[in-house]
């Protein structure tokens, strides 16, 4: 309860307004929270799916890379890879969900084949090229989902904390203060009323006495 608030009518009005405002805020934040949670759940489902795909793609890519290293030697592979002219680029954009900024990623490749002379090269090099390309593309999507999830989760946490603070502390506190203020105002009204009655009573008595004396 807010003890420093004087129990006056103007304060009661102000407190009532505050209470209304706090309830409105809580309702809005509650809505925000459920929207964020729904968004979060869809993203998590998608991300779990993508995680599996990325893991598989990366595993495959690494295997074929290992194979080409084994077949051709690390130095030769490294030299060859340095010469391959593929450029990957990302288009990043943003999407907003309830004020949370979520990234969106799109991966594009430039450069046309053939990237190297087929002489002295094993098939696994081609294979690893294809595999890594696929893995990188999936990874772009995964990174978008992961970062979105992290940011959303943080916002959900913050919102839950705000809702709880309003619901468990601010609103009960205001209710109590309003009740106390109202009770005090009513009490002082009753006191005033009795005081007035007593004054009236006395005035009547004294006028009665005056009249009897005159008679």
């Amino acid at each position, binding site marked *: 309860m807010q003890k420093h608030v004087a129990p006056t009518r103007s304060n009661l009005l102000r407190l009532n307004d505050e209470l209304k405002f706090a309830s409105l805020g809580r309702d809005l934040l509650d809505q925000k929270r459920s929207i964020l949670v729904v968004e*979060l759940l869809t993203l998590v489902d998608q991300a779990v799916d993508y995680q599996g795909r990325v*893991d598989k793609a990366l595993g495959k*890519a690494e295997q074929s890379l290992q194979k080409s290293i084994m077949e051709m030697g690390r130095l030769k592979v490294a030299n060859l890879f340095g010469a391959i002219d593929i*450029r990957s680029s990302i*288009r990043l954009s*943003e999407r907003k969900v309830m004020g949370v900024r979520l990234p969106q*990623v799109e991966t594009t490749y430039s450069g046309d084949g053939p990237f190297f002379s087929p002489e002295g090269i094993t098939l696994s090099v081609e294979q690893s*090229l294809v595999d890594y390309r696929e893995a990188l593309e999936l990874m772009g999507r995964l990174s978008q989902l992961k970062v979105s999830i992290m940011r959303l989760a943080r916002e959900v946490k913050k919102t*839950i904390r705000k809702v709880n603070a309003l619901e468990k502390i601010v609103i009960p506190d205001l209710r109590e203060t309003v009740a106390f203020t109202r009770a005090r105002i009513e009490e002082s009204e009753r006191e005033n009323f009795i005081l007035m009655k007593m004054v009236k009573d006395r005035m009547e008595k004294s006028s009665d006495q005056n009249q009897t004396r005159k008679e």
Partner: protein
Amino acid sequence: MKYYVIGDEDTVLGFSLVGTQGSVATTTEQVQNALSKALENKEYGIIIITEDLANMIRPIVDRYLFTETFPLIVEIPNRFTRGKSKDLRALVNEAIGVSL
């Protein structure tokens, strides 16, 4: 914008195949240097980092993950921890303390 890879030798080699630049790192110091170099260059939109290296500089990675808009940082399991990549749901539970 481009990708940038920080990881062990094979990971970096593999990604260089598809036109991604990167640097090899094994110690905490090297990872820090590589990351700050990558962050300085605004060309890099997504930084791919292997999980074990990310764990070495967890606070920095987390800061970028949660607050900065770009670049995005994504962790991948490396060859030796394959199959043990952290479950996303567990990650979310950790982050918000609410089970989904």
